[in-house]
């Protein structure tokens, strides 16, 4: 038995000799012990006593079990004996426990850090290495009909995500005269080429200055680009460049990659932020930052195609330069083209590709060009 001094409950400023009652669970059995509480001032301990038994908790280390629904009483614990619980409505005990609200850390930070790194590494490995490699391999095996279907599905997604109202799909422009002019331009460019999938050139009714290739021979020109192009040759250069991506199956690789990556990122961020993320990634799909080698391959392809069609390949370089002067480096297509470090080199290459004996013919007459510019009207 302890001495009498151990039985004084001191609450607040004045020492008071009173008993408080509580229910104590020892964590060994489900038995509830009706206990009397007191404070041992000399050792700064809460004394929990019943029958002939006594449990002591250091006041400085007592914690309240957090987020309790009933705030009229206290559910207390001591990390030194994590299974024990004390319930009491002598709420003034709280005053004597300085660390009452401090959280108890049960999980080793080191383990968290280890697994966090492992998770990041595996996600990075999958998104940056495994999925792209596999996508590149698979893109060469996908049959034309499958590629076309993939392109159709991607085009639908792009049209939905670009639609400002969020309910419908962005309209495709199809004014007959404009369509005819566009077909004429495409036909002249592709004359003499055996393409695996026939080209399907669309115009999206939007102000963005952009153009992109999708799987299955889809090339999408945004109306903003047509309005910004100074000459039909500049537009033809863009189309030729995108045909280069189609031939290189860059878009197919990209679409397959995003099919693999979207799910992984959705997994990481949960359904709350996941939806927004998928939209963002669709956005990325049309900002398509292909690898540098894919871009220069597309450029050389475009040079060749333009020369064969009797269009000066310089149009490509001129167009880059013109857009850059007018819109700066960070907008839509300019970003797409300018993201490559050596724009100057590409312009030079474009000039070098001009054969001196080349017969340059305008790709579209004035009327046809005007019709094409009005394709969305």
């Amino acid at each position, binding site marked *: 038995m302890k001495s009498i001094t151990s039985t004084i409950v001191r609450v607040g400023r004045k020492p008071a000799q009173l*008993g408080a009652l509580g229910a104590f669970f020892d964590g060994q059995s*489900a038995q509830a012990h009706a206990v009397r509480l007191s404070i041992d001032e000399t050792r700064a301990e809460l004394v929990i006593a019943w029958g002939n038994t*006594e449990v002591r908790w250091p006041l400085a280390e007592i914690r309240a079990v*957090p987020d309790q*629904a*009933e705030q009229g009483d206290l*559910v207390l614990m001591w990390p030194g004996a994590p299974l*024990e619980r004390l319930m009491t409505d002598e709420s003034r005990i709280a005053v004597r426990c300085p660390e009452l609200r401090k959280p108890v850390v049960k*999980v080793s930070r080191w383990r968290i850090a280890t697994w966090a790194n492992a998770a990041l590494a595996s996600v990075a490995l999958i998104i940056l290495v495994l999925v792209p490699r596999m996508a590149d391999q698979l893109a060469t095996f996908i049959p034309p009909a499958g590629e076309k279907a993939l392109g159709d599905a991607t085009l639908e997604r792009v049209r939905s995500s670009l639609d400002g109202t969020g309910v419908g799909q962005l309209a495709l422009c199809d004014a007959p005269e404009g369509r005819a002019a566009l077909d004429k331009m495409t036909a002249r460019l592709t004359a003499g080429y055996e393409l695996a999938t026939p080209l399907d050139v669309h115009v999206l009714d939007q102000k963005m200055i952009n153009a992109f290739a999708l799987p299955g021979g889809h090339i999408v020109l945004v109306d903003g680009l047509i309005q910004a192009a100074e000459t039909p040759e500049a537009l033809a250069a863009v189309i030729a460049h995108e045909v280069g991506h189609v031939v290189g199956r860059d878009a197919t690789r990209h679409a397959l990659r995003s099919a693999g990556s979207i*799910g992984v990122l959705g997994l990481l961020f949960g359904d709350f932020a996941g939806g927004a993320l998928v939209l963002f990634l669709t956005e990325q799909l049309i900002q398509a930052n292909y690898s540098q080698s894919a871009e220069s391959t597309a450029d050389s392809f475009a040079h060749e195609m333009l020369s064969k069609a009797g269009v000066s390949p310089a149009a490509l370089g001129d167009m880059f330069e013109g857009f850059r002067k007018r819109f700066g480096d960070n907008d839509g297509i300019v970003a797409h083209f300018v993201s490559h470090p050596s724009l100057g080199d590409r312009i030079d290459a474009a000039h070098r590709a001009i054969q001196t004996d080349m017969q340059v013919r305008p790709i579209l007459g004035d009327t046809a060009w005007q019709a094409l510019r009005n394709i969305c009207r």
Partner: protein
Amino acid sequence: MVSHAITSSRHVKNSARLKPFPYLGGGFFVLGLSLSNTEGSVESDNAPTPWNVAREAKDATQAKKTPLASGQVQGAFVGRRGRVFWMALRFGVYTLLTVGMYRFWMKTRLRRWYWSSVRIGGIPLEYVGDPLEKVLGFLIAVVFLAFYIGVVNLLLMFASFSLFQGEYPAYILSFAGVIPFWFYARYRARRYVLARTRWRGVRFGLAPGAWGYVGRALALWIVTILSAGMLWPLKTFWLEKYVTDRTWFGTVRMEQGGRWTMLFRPFLNVVFPGVGLAGLMIWVGYSERFKGGEMAAGAVLAVWSLIGLVHYQVQAKRLLANAKRAANMGLVAEPRTRTVFRIYVVGYGIAGIVSSVALVPIALAGLIVFEASGGSMGAVQEILAGMPVWAAPVVGGLSYFAMFLMWSALRQAFVTMPLWRLYADTLSVIGADAMGQVQQRPRDEFAEAEGFAEALDVGAAI
């Protein structure tokens, strides 16, 4: 003796201030009094102490309920609606601001609150799960699932486009591939939650057996589908029995008694309208008639089957609970379908109406644009195109998040919490006097917590 220094007058004065002491049920007050009944105290077992008086007053207010047998302790729900609403709203904002990371803390803290709200015989449940442990479990799940989702989905997508020229076969296959994991995750999540639940200081537990659960769940689902849903009660019963028979409270194992056929009676209210709806469809298809009479019949049958589903859900829970045993302890549950149905209608009604207020800015903006355009569609597009690029996504995003936050907080306050309250208030434990024989069980370490369930969105209650 501990109580030496306690003078009786002091004691009486102090305890008069205290609220009725609800933790210990009947047994405690005998004990409590015998504790007080030491030298210097004037109290005796029969004396009307303030504690005694307070307790009797509390009993009197509960007297309208079914009188409790000896050793029977009543459940109660002590949480308040306002608190859980603000918690859910605040945590939702944190979750948003931390790109989803706070959701582990949100889940933990809401569970702590709900668990502590449920008091059986005055003693609350306690949830001791740790948010960081959930982060850890989630990371572990990501390591494994990232591979599945990334590589397998890519392969499926490739195969689906190559062979079927469409993405839907991939979605279906990908979904089908996840089903076993889903059941696995559900059992593991249950095991985690039980392992982190304590009552009276003693842990609950669920024995390992997730793959056994997966096998049974798949088989029972197939049987249910093949029987056109008629054997649904069989599935309900056997899955519940599988889990209950592996559930422990300390050293005491629970057991699911009863038979699956006992669930058939409440199920009739699903069967009848279901058969009726099928018959109506055949009739409409055959006669090509869909007029007032058919519509009215369809509406009545639809509402009936809806009520029937809720009825089945509630009554199956009740019947299963009443047939559970653990040593000589048992449960008595008396939830009413009517109350649950009312909670669904009123709760989802309130949550839907109030949270859709978040859409008012969008609607207003739309209206203003429409007015300014003079009603022509071309002008509307012109104005939309003239707005800054960020305007639509920002306004839309903010409204979306506001609506989402409101909806989830209101659903907590008006659906989840009332349901918990109903089930807790109508639950009692019989044979509770044997509680002292229940011993502690060892800790279930469980590194991955409910990571898979979290990642696969198994949809645990909270």
